[in-house]
C-alpha cells in the first residue's frame, strides 16, 4: 500500500483560516469530494463526524487522523491539511491539532483498511517527520513528503 494511491496532489492543503474542529472536517470533506466523482462532501462530513462521536481521532502531539466509511466509492481516499494555527480537537493530550490526515474507506470492510490506518498512525508518530511537515508550506512539497515517508530506525517513539 502506498500513500500515493489514496492521496492526490490536489487533496493536500496548507491553510491558516480554519478555527474550529468542525471547519477542519468540512474542509477535508470538500477536498476529498472535489477530487473524486460520485461522492458528496456532506456524506463524507457526516461519516467523519460520526466517528468523532465515538471518540476523538486526535492522536496527540498536534496530529489528528479522522476517518470513516463511505458508500459509493471503490477505493480508499485521503486528504491532508496543515493548519497555520492549531485548533481544539479534543485530542487525548489536550493539545491543539495542526496536522490533519483524513481517510475514507469503502462501505465494505477489509483488512486492508486497518493496515492503512496503522500505517498512517505509525507515520504520524514519527516526531521528526511531523516537524518537517510543520516547516513546509507549499502544497506540492507537503505531498512529496507525505508520499515519500518510509519507516526508519529513528521513527520509533
Amino acid at each position, binding site marked *: 500500500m502506498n500513500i500515493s494511491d489514496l492521496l492526490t496532489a490536489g487533496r493536500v492543503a496548507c491553510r491558516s483560516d480554519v478555527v474550529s474542529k468542525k471547519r477542519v472536517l468540512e474542509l477535508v470533506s470538500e477536498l476529498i469530494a472535489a477530487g473524486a466523482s460520485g461522492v458528496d462532501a456532506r456524506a463524507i462530513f457526516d461519516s467523519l463526524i*460520526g*466517528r468523532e*462521536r*465515538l*471518540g*476523538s*481521532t486526535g*492522536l496527540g502531539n498536534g496530529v489528528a487522523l479522522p*476517518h*470513516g*466509511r463511505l458508500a459509493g466509492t471503490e477505493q480508499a481516499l485521503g486528504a491532508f491539511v496543515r493548519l497555520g494555527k492549531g485548533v481544539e480537537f479534543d485530542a*487525548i*493530550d*489536550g493539545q491543539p491539532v495542526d496536522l490533519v490526515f483524513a481517510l475514507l474507506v469503502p462501505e465494505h*470492510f*477489509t*483488512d486492508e483498511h*486497518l*493496515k492503512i*490506518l*496503522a500505517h498512517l*498512525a505509525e507515520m504520524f*508518530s514519527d516526531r521528526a517527520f511531523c516537524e518537517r511537515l510543520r516547516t513546509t508550506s507549499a502544497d506540492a512539497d507537503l505531498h512529496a513528503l507525505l508520499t515519500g515517508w518510509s519507516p526508519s530506525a529513528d521513527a520509533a*517513539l
Partner: protein
Amino acid sequence: MQPSDRLILLAGLLMLVSVITTRLSRRIGMPILLVFLGFGMLAGEDGPGGLAWSDVPTSHFIGSLALAVILFDGGMRTQLKSFRVGLRPALGLATLGVLFSAAITGLFAAWALGFDYVEGLLIGAIVGSTDASAVFGVLHAHGLRLKERVGATLEIESGLNDPMAIFLTVAVLEWLLAGRPALDAAPLLLFAQQMGVGAVLGLAGGYLVWLLLDRLDLGAVFTPLFAFAAGLALYGTTAFFGGSGFLAVYLGGLVIGNRPSVGLSLVLRLHEGLAWLAQIAMFLILGLLVTPSQIVPVAWPALLVGLGLMFAARPLAVWLCLLPFRFSPGERLFIAWVGLRGAVPIVLAMFPLLADLPHAGTMFNVAFVVVLLSLSVQGWTVAPLARRLGLELPPAVTPQRHVVSELPGTPGAVFASYVVAVNAPVAGGVLGTLGLPPASRPVAVARGGRLLAEPASVRLVAGDAVHLLAPPGDLEVLDRQFGGRPQRPGPAERAFFGEWVLNGDANLEALAGLYGLQLAADERTLTVGALLTRAFRKPVVGDRLRRGRLEIVVRELDGDRVLRVGLKLHRNGETVAG
C-alpha cells in the same frame, strides 16, 4: 568515652552509611531493606564491627515500635478508592491466606528440620505474613505503577495481614507453652477479640485524631508530632484492651489519610521520614541481633522452608483465596510471587526466644534465612516480572508540588508557586492561552532568577517559576498541569493503550462496521464500556480484550464506569490468550 557516647557514635555511623547507600541501591535495583540488614550484620559479632548485641527484649521493643510507625504511615498512604477492587480479595488473603500459607509452610518446616508438626506450624506462622514495609518499599522504590487490581490487593493485604500472623504465632506458642492442652474455642475467641477491638478502636481513634488535627491548631511543627504521638497512644490503648495494636494503627492511619484536613500534608511529610527511620533502625537492629555463624548449621533446611514457602505455600494460598475473584493468570502469578517477607517474621521469631521455648534459637535463624531469601530473590525480581506480565502501566503525570502562602485581602484564594516540570502539559504553551482553571490568575513568571514582563504572553519552558492567585480547590488541577512524566523506563503510552481513543459509551455495532470487530449476537446493542464491565466486573486501567486484529484497553475510569478506552490495531490477526 562513655558507653552511651559510643552507642550514639555507632548508631550515627550505621544510619549514615545506610542513608547514603539508598542512592546506590536505587541504581542497581537491589532491595534497600537487604542493604540495611547487611550493614547490621557487618557491624555485628561475626562482621568487622564485632559488636555483640544479643538484647532480645530491646530488639523486640524497637521492632514493634518501628512496625507500628510503618503501618500507621502505610495506612495514611492507602487510598480508600483502591478498596473498590482491592479490599475483598485482600481480606481473604490477609486471613485465610495467612492460615493456608502457615499450614503448608509448617509441613515443609517439620519435614526439613525434623520437628513435629506443631513446631513446624509455629515457624509457618512466624513467616506467614506478607510484609507491608517490604511490599511498599519495593513497589515504590521502583516507581512501579501497577494495574490497580494487583497493586491495591497487595497493598491492602500486606497492611492487614500482620495481625493475623501475630495472632497465629501467639496462639500456637501459648498452646505449646501450656503443654499442649486439649483444643477448645479459646483461640477463636482470642482471635475475635484481637480483630474486633483492634478494628473498633482503630477506626474510632483515627476519627478522633482527625477531628482534633485541625481544631487544636498546633502549627506546622506540632501538628505532625501530635499525629505521631496519637498513633503510638492508639497502639498502646488498643493493646491494653486486648486488641491488635497493629491493626488499630493501620486502620487509624487509613481514616486520617482519607479525610480532608489542612494538616495532612505536614503529617504525611513527617511520617514519610519517620517510616524510613523505622525501616533503617529495625533492619539494622535485626542484622545486629542475628549471629551469622549460628545460621550455617540450619542453612540448608531453612532454605528448603523458604523455597517451600515461595514455590508451594504462597502460590497455593493465593490460588485458593483468589478463586472467587476475576484475576487473570498473570495477575495471580504476580500476587503469588510478591509475597515478600520482611521484618515481621524476625520480630515474631523473637516471641519463642523471649518465652525460652525449646528450639527457639533454630526457629529464629530459620525465619531469618527465609526473610533473606525472600528479600533477595523476590525483591530483586518484582519489577522485571511486572513488566514481563504486562502489569505495569505507563508512567502517570506526577503532580507538581506547590508552595502556598496565605495573603491578606484575598479571601478564598491562596498564592501558589509552581516550577514547570519537564514534559509538563503546560510546557511550551503561552501562559495566557493555556486553559488554566478560570479563577486562577497568573501573577508573575520568573526565569533565570528574573521576573519576566507580561506573564500572560510568556511561552513557558521547563524550570520557569509561575506564581498564581488561585482558589484552594483549583490546586489539584494545577498540580497536574505543571507536573511532568517521570523519566524512567516503562511501557510507552501508545504501545500500551494503542493509538486510538474511544469513549466508553461508543456503540459496539459502529465499531464492528468501522474496524471489523467480531461480535457475539448479544453484544451488538452494548457499548464498549459495558462490554469491558461485563468481562471484568470491576475493570481497572490496563484491562484488555483481544478480538482478532483489535485490542480494547481500559484507559480511564470513574469508579466502575469506563470513560475512555484505547484501541489497538494489531498487524497480525491471531488471538492471544490472556
